[in-house]
């Protein structure tokens, strides 16, 4: 395999969309003829491999071989259930109990910015956006996948936090108490 073909392979590996011969030539600072030769070289080298070269929508792209589809579904098309980080658990608990709730509110309660935890929970499909607050902040709520992964029939099945709370109060005051504790924590 030529060095140019290897570079073409690298570019197609990285590109999320099909890439035209012209774009490849520009990126590699070479001629289109050389790129076409390299593509032919690459197609030959990929015989019998797990990745195939395809010409689609006027460009070139790498794709996984159809033989691997079943295994790919087993690996990827399932909810990610790795352990929640402490930040994610706190954030998810706040959204779970207080929904809908905005990110600034989560940050006030936790006493630290909670952007990456929120993003990770959205990415895992545990929470989702649900409109905006009167101040324009995005509001979050839990998803049906959340209920399924926690084995809950409905949000009413969430455990009573009084169990872990040394001084239980009326449940309706939960938000106020969390905000007060958060302010003391930040102070």
């Amino acid at each position, binding site marked *: 395999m030529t060095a140019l073909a290897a570079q073409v392979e690298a570019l197609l590996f990285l590109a999320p969309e099909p890439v035209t011969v012209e774009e490849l030539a520009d990126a590699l600072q070479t001629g289109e003829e050389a790129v076409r030769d390299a593509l032919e070289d690459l197609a030959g080298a990929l015989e019998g491999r797990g990745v195939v070269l395809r010409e689609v929508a006027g460009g070139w792209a790498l794709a996984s071989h159809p033989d691997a589809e079943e295994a790919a579904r087993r690996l990827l*098309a399932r*909810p990610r259930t790795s352990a929640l980080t402490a930040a994610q658990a*706190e954030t998810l608990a706040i959204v779970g109990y207080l929904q809908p709730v905005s990110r600034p509110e989560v940050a006030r309660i936790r006493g630290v910015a909670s952007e990456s935890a929120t993003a990770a929970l959205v990415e895992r499909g545990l929470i989702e956006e649900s409109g905006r607050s009167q101040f324009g902040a995005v509001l979050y709520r839990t998803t049906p996948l959340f209920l399924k992964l926690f084995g809950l029939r409905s949000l009413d*099945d969430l*455990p009573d936090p009084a169990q872990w709370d040394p001084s239980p109060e009326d449940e309706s005051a*939960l938000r106020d108490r969390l905000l007060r504790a958060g302010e*003391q924590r930040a102070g």
Partner: protein
Amino acid sequence: MATVAHRLELDLDVFAGPFDLLLSLVLREELDLLEVELAEIVLAYVDHLEAEGELDLEAATEFLVLIAALLELKSRLMLPGEELPDDLDALAPAEAAEELLERLLQYARFRGAGGWMAAAHAAGQAYLHRSAPLPPGLRRVSVEVAERAYDPDVLGAAVGSLLRTPPPLDLRHIAAPRVSVAERLALLRSLLARGRFSFDEAVEGADRVTEAVTLFALLELYKRGEAAWEQAEPFGPITVHA
């Protein structure tokens, strides 16, 4: 990042230049911290704040941490072993030096490791990973096939612990100022009002910090011309008079 240490220009008796240079000179022992008037640095910072017109909280925090570290260092140099019983006094300077050395060595280690981190970060950028979306067939996670994977108690415990106010910081290990210059000034003036007295009398039964503060108060009286003293020989008794 233009930090306050970088921007704060100082003009002291022993040093003129930015605060961060002063810090590095002190840490490299090229400037004797005992000769640096820390109060002047604080005054310069207050002037600097006035000139800025607004309080940058982060910069203020940074300054406080830096000046507190310098104060701690300087007070250790001035009052070696003040928290130690008398019979351990002789060890105190060595211990203070050991602790300072420990911190310098620890910092040297992490500064070196930081250099490695920066180089590894740059080297790692040569490898690019794919970030293409999954093919449509693999994209949807089906809620139906999802199985219970987490215990809801995790959520109850997380929210419950947020309701708790963290315990107040325990600052007992930091020695509180037990005595003020004003107090000792008042005492010295009352003794002076009775005529001559010996310094030992003024600090009878007092701890080392009180002794030091009393001496400082005495210097203050001398500066104001309210008192003078005599000492016939080193370590001999000191007699104070108006």
